[in-house]
């Protein structure tokens, strides 16, 4: 009986048409599992350049078990001085939760920083400047970035091993001018693949970077109009 019912449905829904109804339809996966996040950007306090490649970060507060990298991994590591951490998806900080991270790098003074999660702020940027041992110079003050007209970027994450899957990333995005030797600067939080920003100048070419799952993914785009659809590989989001 079940087979007959299924057959009738298939017959009705097939309607003598030849093409496959699911052709070119992709499975879209969101990454906004971890709702309360903080992007940590570690720099050399005196130069403002990105932290040395061998800098490490650890969650040292007693609630460390509740803290994950934004990809859901327990392994939290800096990539080009950046990492995004967040609370377990079932943890809602109705009373503020303080997480302490410790950044260490050979030749630098180890530094601790408290990050406070609460329900008012789902995303936050935490800058940590580390100083070389014995360096007493004051920290460099980075001027605020220049602003331009609003530009909308729509990112789609690709899975190199799954052409039928698309990732709709909810992550922090950094940027720098193409060819620049400076470190990446924070651009904004991309919500379900979309970010609007006024930090991009018309006519300039930029590298955009996502740090996710311990990997860095970049894409380059020249800005000549007010909206772009960009594809970016996100292999670390494809392991399901």
């Amino acid at each position: 009986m079940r087979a007959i019912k299924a057959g009738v449905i298939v017959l009705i829904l097939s309607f003598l048409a030849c093409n496959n109804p699911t052709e070119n339809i992709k499975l879209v996966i969101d990454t906004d599992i971890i709702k309360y996040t903080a992007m940590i950007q570690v720099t050399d306090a005196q130069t403002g350049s990105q932290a040395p490649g061998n800098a490490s970060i650890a969650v040292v507060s007693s609630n460390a078990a509740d803290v994950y990298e934004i990809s859901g991994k327990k392994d939290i590591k800096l990539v080009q001085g950046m990492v995004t951490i967040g609370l377990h998806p079932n943890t809602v900080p109705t009373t503020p939760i303080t997480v302490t991270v410790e950044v260490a790098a050979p030749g630098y003074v180890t530094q601790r920083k408290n990050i406070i999660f609460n329900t008012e702020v789902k995303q936050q940027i935490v800058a940590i400047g580390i100083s070389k041992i014995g360096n007493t110079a004051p920290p460099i003050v980075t001027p605020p970035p220049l602003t331009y007209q609003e530009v909308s970027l729509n990112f789609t994450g690709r899975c190199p091993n799954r052409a039928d899957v698309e990732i709709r990333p909810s992550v922090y995005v950094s940027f720098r001018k193409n060819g620049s030797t400076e470190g990446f600067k924070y651009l904004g939080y991309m919500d379900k693949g979309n970010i609007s920003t006024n930090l991009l100048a018309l006519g300039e070419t930029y590298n955009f970077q996502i740090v996710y799952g311990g990997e860095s993914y970049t894409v380059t785009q020249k800005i000549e109009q007010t909206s772009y659809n960009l594809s970016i590989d996100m292999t670390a989001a494809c392991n399901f």
Partner: protein
Amino acid sequence: MKLLAVALSLLLPPVISSAQNNADTVAKRPMAMQLNVGTQGIGLAFNYEVINHLSFRAGINAIPLKANDVFKISGVNSTSNVSANFYNIHFLADYTPFENQEWFRLVGGLAYFLKAEGNARIIPSDDYKYGDLTLTEEQIGYVDLTVDWKGLAPYIGIGLLRNFPKNKFNVNLDFGTYYLTKPDADIVGTGILSGNSSQSEQLRDNIKNYRWLPILQVNFNYKF
């Protein structure tokens, strides 16, 4: 003149019938109730011969069907709940073109589909890991695909076996097709699948030619 007679007989069948009884000069036109079963579900129709070789049917049909696990997404282990709900009122003309071949009819007409929906809910069935986290069913979510053909649809087909019983009962067949309105389609997702609504446009494009609803139907007729 013939057309006028048809129109009058449609509008005033009881009157004509009465006149016929009174005059008793013209044979009474057959009429029958029809119970049908087929790909448009189960239905009822009233069948009336308005002139020789031409009869009209007016009726309703309904097909509420559900089935599980007939739809899969490649690469994702999932369960699916599929349903089809088609409800129509129809008006058909049966024409017997050959005097001595009463077993064969040409059939044409119109239906209005009050509801003509296909739905599929696809639910991933595995435990899904996000990094080191195991997602709950609610966090994973599901995907609903809905296709809607509601509206007017012309019908063309053939009928086999006698239209009206010689005595009280008979069985005959219909083979044909409705040409449905261009379908509307939507994909709605929840949880980590909520972004799949972006695929609605592609689904609409894929099924824009899914408009032929084949009809294979057995009719059980009672003449009165």
